[in-house]
C-alpha cells in the first residue's frame, strides 16, 4: 500500500505538535505502551473515516487494523511534514479505496435516473414531486442525518467515493484524482453527477412546497 507524503505542515497548536513529535519518537523506538497509546488516541477517528467510505462494518474494522499495521511498519520513515493523524488518515483512505476497488460483489443501480432531464431545447424538465415526508413534518437533525447518509450510500461507488473525498474529506481535485488513479477532468465530471444525484435523492427533505426548509436546524 503506497504511503502518500504530505507537502505542508498542518496548522495545529504548539502543544499538539510537541505531543505528536514525542509520540512519534516513542513509536520509532518501539517504547512500551506507545503503540497502544497511538491506537487509543486515533483509532476511533480512523474508524469513523473509513466507515464513511465503506458500507460494511467488517471491512471498516479490517481497514483500521491494516492501517495501523502499515503505520507501525512505516513510522520509521515518517518525517513530520504533516501531523501524525493526517498521515494516518491518508493511509486509511487509501486502504478503504483499495477495498472498494476489489469488491466486485456489489451490483449497483445506474445513476442516470437520478440526473436532471432537459427537453430538446435544453430547458430543464422539473420532476414530479414525490414527497415521502408530510408537509407538516419538521425533521430533526438526527432524522435528516440518517436520511442523508442513506442517500449517499445509494450512490454507485464510482460517484460516491468522489463525493466523499471532495465534499466530506475536503480533498482537492488533484488529491482526489491521485487517490483514485483517474484524471482531474473525470473527478469533476463524477463529482457533478454525484452532487446532482444526491440532490435528487434528498428532494423530499430539502423543502416543502412553499420552499420552507423542513429541518429544524437549517
Amino acid at each position: 500500500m503506497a504511503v502518500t507524503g504530505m507537502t505542508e505542515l498542518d496548522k495545529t497548536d504548539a502543544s499538539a505538535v510537541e505531543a505528536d513529535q514525542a509520540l512519534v519518537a516513542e513509536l520509532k523506538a518501539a517504547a512500551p505502551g506507545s503503540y497502544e497509546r497511538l491506537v487509543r488516541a486515533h483509532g476511533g477517528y480512523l474508524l469513523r473515516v473509513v466507515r464513511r467510505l465503506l458500507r460494511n462494518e467488517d471491512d471498516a474494522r479490517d481497514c483500521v487494523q491494516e492501517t495501523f499495521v502499515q503505520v507501525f511498519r512505516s513510522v520509521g520513515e515518517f518525517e513530520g511534514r504533516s501531523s501524525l493523524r493526517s498521515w494516518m488518515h491518508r493511509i486509511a483512505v487509501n486502504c478503504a479505496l483499495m477495498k472498494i476497488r476489489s469488491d466486485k460483489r456489489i451490483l449497483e443501480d445506474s445513476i442516470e435516473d437520478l440526473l436532471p432531464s432537459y427537453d430538446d431545447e435544453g430547458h430543464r424538465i422539473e420532476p414530479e414531486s414525490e414527497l415521502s415526508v408530510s408537509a407538516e413534518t419538521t425533521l430533526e437533525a438526527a432524522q435528516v442525518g440518517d436520511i442523508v447518509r442513506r442517500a449517499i450510500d445509494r450512490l454507485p461507488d464510482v460517484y460516491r467515493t468522489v463525493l466523499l473525498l471532495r465534499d466530506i474529506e475536503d480533498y482537492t481535485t488533484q488529491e482526489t484524482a491521485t487517490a483514485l488513479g483517474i484524471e482531474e477532468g473525470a473527478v469533476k465530471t463524477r463529482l457533478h453527477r454525484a452532487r446532482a444525484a444526491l440532490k435528487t435523492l434528498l428532494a423530499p427533505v430539502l423543502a416543502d412546497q412553499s420552499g420552507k426548509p423542513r429541518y429544524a436546524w437549517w
Partner: protein
Amino acid sequence: MITCRDVDSFLDDYLDGTLPEDKRKIFEAHLGLCPPCVDYLRDYRAAGSLAKHAQGDHEHSVDGLPEELVKAILAASSKPG
C-alpha cells in the same frame, strides 16, 4: 442565451467561485429569467451542505474504537505495546 443544460455544466465552478467573469454574468442572467434553475441551484447547494452536516453530526455520536479491535490491532502489530 445559455440553456438550463448549460447552467448545469457551469454549476460547480459557479459555486466554487472559479467561473470566469464573462461566463458568470451569462450564468446569472439566466438565473434571473429561469425560476426552475434558481430552485435547482438552491437545492443543489443545500444537498451538499446537508451531506457535510450529516457527516459532522455523525462524528459526535459515534463511540470510540471497540476494545476487541484495539486488542486485535496490537496483536497484529506483533510489537511491544
